[in-house]
């Protein structure tokens, strides 16, 4: 278990991370969200001991993270970097060896990884010949091939198309199911919702939201309604308690002031019987993120 206790980090007068507490557990994925400059990368850098916290404690199973612990950490940095002149194999074997994996084991595992991640090219191809997406997959393999116990992924999906994003997400889920502790940052709330068990939202270095993804969404109440039927926007706007209404394809996205308004809307739209769709959901992470950013500004 990784524990961050009351972590603070300042650069001169600038507070990068403010009183951060966080727990990462084996077999769980933590999504770290926040605007640019919120302190996500600084947090990763402190965990990896690239920079020292101004105050606070970071521990792995109750002891400070040592050099030998670092060998069990898989890290995918935000700005990707590979040795352009080396082949895929040379590159991966070097990183695997640095993490304590034998060359022969790494060589065997590489074949599987290349297949699973659908990398176009051979292990003997030079990295400089790869497309951006394939290079990103190689970087992902370099970070994960040695089956790390703790995985830190800084913006793992940035620059990937939906197909490759889905491939990467499957790998993260696979590693989680194998018992790894995973923390990742992303600006894509859809992806965060899909793979995170827990969530921490940062605003100017401070945690503004933390907990299970569903738990956080529920906390905001089921204030999002989607309805389809023979109605007009002006007709629905007359119902009391609706704060926002927007036509979305064949239906309407409605935001309500509180959960109970949902009953009035349901009664109204079903007064003549059957309607094709009605759902009342908590707000999406995207909505919550926007709302929280606006609230703390």
């Amino acid at each position: 278990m990784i524990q961050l206790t009351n972590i603070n980090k300042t650069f001169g007068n600038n507070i990068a991370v403010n009183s951060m507490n966080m727990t990462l557990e084996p077999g769980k994925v933590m999504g770290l969200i926040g605007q640019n400059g919120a302190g996500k990368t600084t947090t990763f850098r402190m965990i990896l001991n690239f920079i020292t916290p101004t105050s606070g404690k970071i521990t792995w199973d109750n002891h400070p993270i040592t050099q030998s612990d670092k060998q069990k950490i898989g890290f995918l940095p935000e700005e990707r970097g590979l040795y352009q002149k080396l082949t895929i194999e040379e590159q991966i074997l070097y990183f695997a060896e640095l993490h304590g994996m034998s060359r022969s084991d790494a060589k065997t595992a590489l074949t599987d990884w290349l297949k699973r991640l659908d990398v176009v090219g051979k292990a003997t191809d030079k990295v400089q010949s790869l497309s951006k997406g394939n290079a990103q997959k190689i970087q992902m393999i370099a970070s994960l091939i040695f089956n790390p116990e703790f995985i830190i992924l800084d913006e793992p999906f940035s620059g990937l198309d939906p197909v490759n994003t889905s491939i990467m997400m499957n790998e993260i889920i696979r590693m989680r199911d194998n018992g790894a502790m995973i923390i990742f940052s992303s600006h894509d709330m859809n992806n965060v919702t899909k793979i995170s068990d827990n969530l921490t939202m940062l605003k100017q270095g401070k945690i503004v939201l933390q907990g299970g993804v569903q738990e956080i969404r529920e906390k905001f109440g089921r204030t999002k309604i989607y309805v389809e039927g023979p109605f007009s926007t002006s007709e629905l706007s007359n119902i009391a308690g609706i704060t926002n209404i927007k036509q979305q394809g064949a239906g309407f996205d409605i935001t309500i002031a509180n959960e109970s308004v949902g009953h009035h809307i349901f009664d109204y739209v079903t007064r003549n019987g059957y309607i094709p769709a009605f759902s009342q959901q908590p707000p999406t992470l995207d909505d919550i993120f926007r709302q929280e950013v606006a609230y703390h500004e």
Partner: protein
Amino acid sequence: MNKSLIIVIKQTYRSHFKTRGFWLLVLSPLIFAVILGAIGFGISQMQGNTTPKVAIIGNSQVRQIFKRDEKSLEIDVSKITDSKQANKSLASQDLDGILTIDNDNATLTTQPKSNSINKEAIVSVLGNLSRSQKAADYGLTAEQTQNLIKPFNLKSVVKQSNNESTNGDSSDMANYGIAVAIGIVTTMIVMWYASMIATEIANEKSSRIMETLLAATSASIQYFGKMIGIFALAVTHMAIYVVAGVIGYIVLQNNKLFSNVIQMFSGITLGFTLYAISFILVAVALYLILTAMIASLVNDNAQVQQAVQPITFLAMIGYMFSFIMTNMPNNLAIKVLSYVPFISQSMMPVRLVTKVETWPAAIISLLIAVVAMISLAWMGQSIYAKNVLSYSDDKIMSQLIKNIKNKN
């Protein structure tokens, strides 16, 4: 040794050893030497016989003496003894010269395309003959005559502090050769490998590979691993030249020019050779450490030259001083610089071999360089760790000064 350190050393070594650039660096001087040798050999072959053919006219006795001493006079005495026929042969370029002897006077006639004739040797022989003739006329005995014409012998000897004497002329040549060799070897290695390590670090830093590397290992492992890897590469480079040298020696041992070069270095002992090599290796390590330290302050590859330039200048200073020193070995500044790390490798070995300094002084100078190397490596390690993941817009040198100040 730490396992991660070995992995970084191996990777650094392997990734450069396999490149075309490394082999180009290693082979280009060898190819250049082979081409130069081949050109020299070709020219000498094309030249054919260059011994000048000279006809001696006028005095058969002198002609016989010249015929006897042909080899030492470096001439080929022609069978022609008739002036008219000789002039005809000279005009048709069958002869290189006609030496016409008339009592106390002689005339050497050549044509524009004649091979070069050693006039000093001819004058010397003719002078001796003239003096012998006059001595006989004065009634001196053969022994008295020999004494009279015997040249004055000036021998050049260097008196050493331990009362041993060496041949001045050959030792001057050897010392000059050593000064040039050590200076060139150190400067070239520094220029090649300082640039290599700086590019390696700048590349890892600018492409952000460094973050991935430091997630697995510590900054000190990366720092020492890279330096040892590149140092091993430099040693391999030198070892290839040693092997090439041994092969060259076996092939060329009967070559006259090569024997002269070997003769020039014959006074150098195994002890001195080991000392000079140790000094070169320590100096190369010193420069690599300094380069790695400065390269950690670089933001991208474009700044590599800016970082490496002062280091190569520093190496050049030692090289320049090694030349000045051969002319003024007792200059106080030169004496002091012989103990200053980064420069001493170009000064002290030469001072030792010229016997200006003793072995204890030489050992002290080497030890100072070793201590400087260890201290710099230690200091460099923390500067590297502090800067390898930070990117500053300040000038490299001002960053370095700031880092050193903060450290103290």
